[in-house]
């Protein structure tokens, strides 16, 4: 098992003279803005009368850089398209993670290795697909004739594989290709070649968008039905549109917000709707790293996998089955456990399958006390208040602390039998410049969780038997104040509007594959207003996001004149 990502014996030390969260820091999570109103635009949510009017008059969808299927999306898509569950993209060159997600448009890097891997996967998928030729074809070539059947196949399969209805020119091209291949091979081989070619087509590997005829303003175009279908299916299921969506596209019901909402709701509440929820939070929380960190021997690969599943099940439950609110996510006295997990956390019980369990309401604060996150933000054998505090600020508030100066000594103090770990850390980071300014903000929320050890389990005292002090003061946010423990802190965070805005920002990035910009102000204001009105209902947020103009329109500059 590989060791933890960060040097096990180094702290994160931050040096700053300014306050956390002001512009100027361009950490991984984007603009580092502290006001949460987008990049420097300012103005309260809802805006002035003029701004609202301006938003109603023009449509400014922002950029729509072309997306490529991620490895996860590729695997899901070929499973749906061909019934092939081999997940060949598992070993493709990974995407470059940008702004926390692997589906960022700029993360789709190219290399000779990747192209070779794609070609090989397509070749194998096609060859497997034709072993069940009649199922694949859906047409009796003996009865209908080979060419008519092939023709039908190209149109029908092409519509699903290339995610749009093929034009006459496109169909002719594929038919000529088929005919040429049939002249030098069997019927099955010729069909195989067609499938192979489609799986390498840019319409398969990418999601190109052109929109329909331009608006009067010529600045924006509405997306076509099929383009909308793809956006919806990849947003909610991470895969190609199903037949119902394709039919809705053909029937032109995806051209209105109402029509889109109906499909979005169907996709989200369908069992497959868990896919994107889990994928989003898995990346947000960095959960895949659980399988490669080192903790005590008791933390087996099985436990690492279970902690990840626990959190995935929890977030899906809150969003799609429970009340869907971010505040509930942050405070619910519940999780998902099976017998192995329950025993691990010291509360034996449960069955083999993961199930929702009620937990101690005096100790449990939803997502914040999820074992997975507490484990990840720790060191072998020691908690890490710095990592935990930083995670809270960065991913829950979108207020990344600025980095420390170069050449600081970042070693973690070795545990001392006579001094509490908290005192050691405070001594090292909160009594000296240039560390104290930032650590006064980072450390306290981290200390709040110190009753949870490096594997997310409750402990009453430290290893050296000294008592644990979890009290502190939250600062640098919109809900600053004192807290006695992590439960108090959770209640504070659950009230934060900054945190709710962070949720919108993160989902925007995941959905659009880019950061929100000044041109997206109207969209962001609209989402913010609705999210506040719904008391932070994420389920509603996702449906609203699919109905925004940013989601339904394409800037005309994205297409060649």
């Amino acid at each position: 098992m590989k060791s933890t990502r960060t040097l096990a014996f180094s702290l994160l030390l931050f040096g700053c003279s300014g306050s956390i969260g002001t512009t100027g820091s361009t950490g991984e999570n984007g603009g580092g803005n502290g006001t949460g109103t987008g990049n420097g635009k300012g103005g309260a949510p809802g805006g002035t009368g003029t701004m609202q009017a301006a938003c109603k008059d023009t449509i400014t969808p922002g950029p729509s850089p072309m997306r490529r299927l991620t490895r996860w999306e590729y695997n899901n898509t070929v499973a749906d398209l061909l019934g092939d569950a081999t997940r060949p993209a598992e070993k493709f060159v990974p995407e470059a993670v940008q702004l926390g997600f692997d589906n960022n448009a700029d993360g789709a890097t190219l290399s000779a290795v990747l192209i070779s891997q794609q070609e090989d996967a397509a070749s194998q998928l096609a060859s497997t697909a034709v072993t069940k030729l009649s199922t694949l074809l859906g047409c009796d070539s003996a009865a209908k004739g080979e060419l008519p059947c092939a023709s039908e196949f190209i149109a029908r399969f092409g519509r699903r594989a290339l995610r749009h209805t093929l034009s006459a020119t496109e169909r002719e091209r594929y038919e000529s290709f088929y005919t040429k291949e049939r002249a030098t091979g069997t019927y099955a081989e010729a069909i195989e070649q067609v499938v192979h070619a489609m799986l390498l087509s840019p319409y398969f590997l990418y999601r190109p968008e052109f929109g329909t005829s331009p608006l009067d303003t010529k600045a924006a175009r509405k997306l076509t039905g099929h383009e909308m279908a793809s956006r919806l299916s990849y947003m909610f299921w991470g895969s190609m549109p199903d037949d119902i969506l394709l039919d809705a596209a053909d029937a032109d019901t995806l051209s209105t917000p109402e029509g889109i909402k109906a499909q979005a709701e169907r996709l989200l509440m369908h069992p497959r709707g868990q896919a994107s929820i889990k994928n989003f939070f898995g990346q947000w929380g960095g959960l895949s790293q659980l399988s490669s960190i080192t903790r005590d021997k008791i933390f087996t690969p099985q436990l690492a996998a279970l902690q990840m599943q626990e959190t995935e099940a929890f977030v899906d439950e809150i969003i799609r089955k429970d009340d869907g609110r971010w505040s509930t996510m942050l405070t619910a006295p519940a999780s998902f456990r099976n017998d192995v997990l329950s025993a691990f956390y010291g509360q034996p019980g449960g069955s083999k399958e993961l199930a929702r369990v009620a937990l101690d309401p005096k100790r449990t604060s939803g997502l914040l006390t999820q074992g997975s996150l507490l484990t990840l933000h720790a060191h072998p054998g020691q908690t890490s208040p710095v990592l935990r505090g930083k995670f809270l600020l960065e991913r829950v508030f979108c207020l990344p602390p600025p980095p420390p100066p170069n050449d600081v000594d970042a070693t973690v103090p070795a545990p001392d039998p006579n001094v509490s770990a908290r005192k050691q850390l405070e001594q090292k980071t909160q009594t000296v410049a240039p560390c104290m300014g930032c650590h006064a903000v980072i450390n306290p929320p981290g200390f709040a969780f110190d009753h949870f050890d490096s594997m997310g389990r409750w402990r009453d005292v430290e290893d050296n038997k000294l008592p644990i002090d979890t009290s502190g003061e939250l600062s640098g946010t919109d809900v600053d104040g004192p807290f006695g423990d992590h439960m108090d802190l959770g209640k504070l965070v659950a009230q934060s509007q900054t945190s709710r805005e962070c949720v919108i920002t993160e989902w925007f990035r995941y959905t659009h594959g880019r950061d929100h910009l000044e041109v997206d102000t109207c969209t962001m204001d609209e989402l913010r207003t609705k999210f506040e009105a719904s008391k932070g209902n994420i389920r509603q947020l996702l449906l609203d996001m699919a109905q925004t103009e940013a989601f339904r329109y394409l800037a005309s500059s994205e297409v060649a004149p």
Partner: protein
Amino acid sequence: MKRFQLSRRAVLRGTGGVSLALPFLEIMGRPGRASAATAPKRIVFWYTTCGTVMQTWRPAAAGKNFEIKAILKPFDTPELRPHLTLVSGVSMEAAKKSGGNGHAAGMTAMMTCRSYKERKPTEFGDVGWGGGISIDQELKSHIKGTPLSSLELGIQTQGQYKNFYSYMSYGKDGGSANAVPADDDPVSTYKRVFSSLPAGATRVEIERIIKRRTSVLDFVGEDYKTLSARLGSRDRMLLERHANLIRELENGLVTLNTACEKPAQPGALARDALYRDANMPAIGKSQMDILAAAFACDQTRVATLQWTEAQAGQVYSSFINTDWTKQGDEIYHHGISHAAVSAAGTTFGDNPKSTAVQLDANDKLTLINNWYAQQLAYFANKLRNTPDVDGKSVLDNTAIVWVTEISEGPNHSFNNMPYVIVGGLGGALKTGEFFDYGNKRAHNDLFITLGQAMGIPNFTTFGDPAFVKGPLDTLLA
């Protein structure tokens, strides 16, 4: 009315009376046949992380009969010693110019000889990406006529960081957009080099398979061209790049040396197994075998073989048998490199200078580097035992260049980079000697030397010109 189109494939195949000299197709595959033919020169950059242990690497004095210390002991044989060259006293000036995080600065300058592009501050110091093209990608651009212009093989390079710590190679202009990933999967590498040709396939069958695959690629290439014309500039450029790569793939298939003697097909590993430390030796061996065959058959002449990422969390305890307990929890490569003591006696941060942990760390690090030297010796012997077209061995006509991103762990030094060169590039390089340049030369100059030794005309500069003096004359034969 359809226009007659001569497909790219047909042209390359030499139809219509056009003939193309395909490299060594007839000559290769017949080992032991001595001829007056000139052998191609091959170069591979061999990467390990976290530097070396100078105390057990660096010979006491420069010259011909240099002392082989503990790390390079696998080369202390009558067969390998003559091929072994050590270079010290060369510094990575470009890395010093980057500053910030030592591993990031080192990794991104190691092959590019330039300082950061896309500099960014982090809690671990400034980081960034390679500042320009890497030497392997530069060299390959001068070499035509092989099915694959280069091969980038990896062992667990894309499992941990997946950022600038993960890449040693960069295309033209460097930066994150041009970082070239290594292929960590021997099954995938194998397919690139030998194509997915079934074992025991006849010549006719092989030709047919290749014909069908290139037919698809031809067709698909048109798709990219048509679509990209309809898109805005950003997306158009992306698809054009993709189309170029498809074209390169097709060219490689067409010019493939199908008479190549292939090693056994490596067994497939699931993704998590591919990144398990215990599987490193087996994966490494597969990659080395594939590369050796690729060189022997002239499928490519430029390669990188990258063991892990920079500052990797590799744990070697499952295959390096020793008592690891003295290092406590820090038994991963990066951690041990920081626990060590440098040749000048410095330790990392406020680590104590001479506790058992420190001394033991040096021992562990020596064992780790010795293990890598064993792998290198295995690879070198493989090349040595492969006859080349000129009657010599493939190793005689190759240079394996061992690189790393810092020289010593405790101080992240960029001085005295521990270069090992195995093989003499067909007599163009001196071998069997230890060269010390007193830290008066930058590694740009070493790469210029290699470029000239590869026979590339007018190769007089590389990387940041501020650090270029010229080739290391004493290294050239």
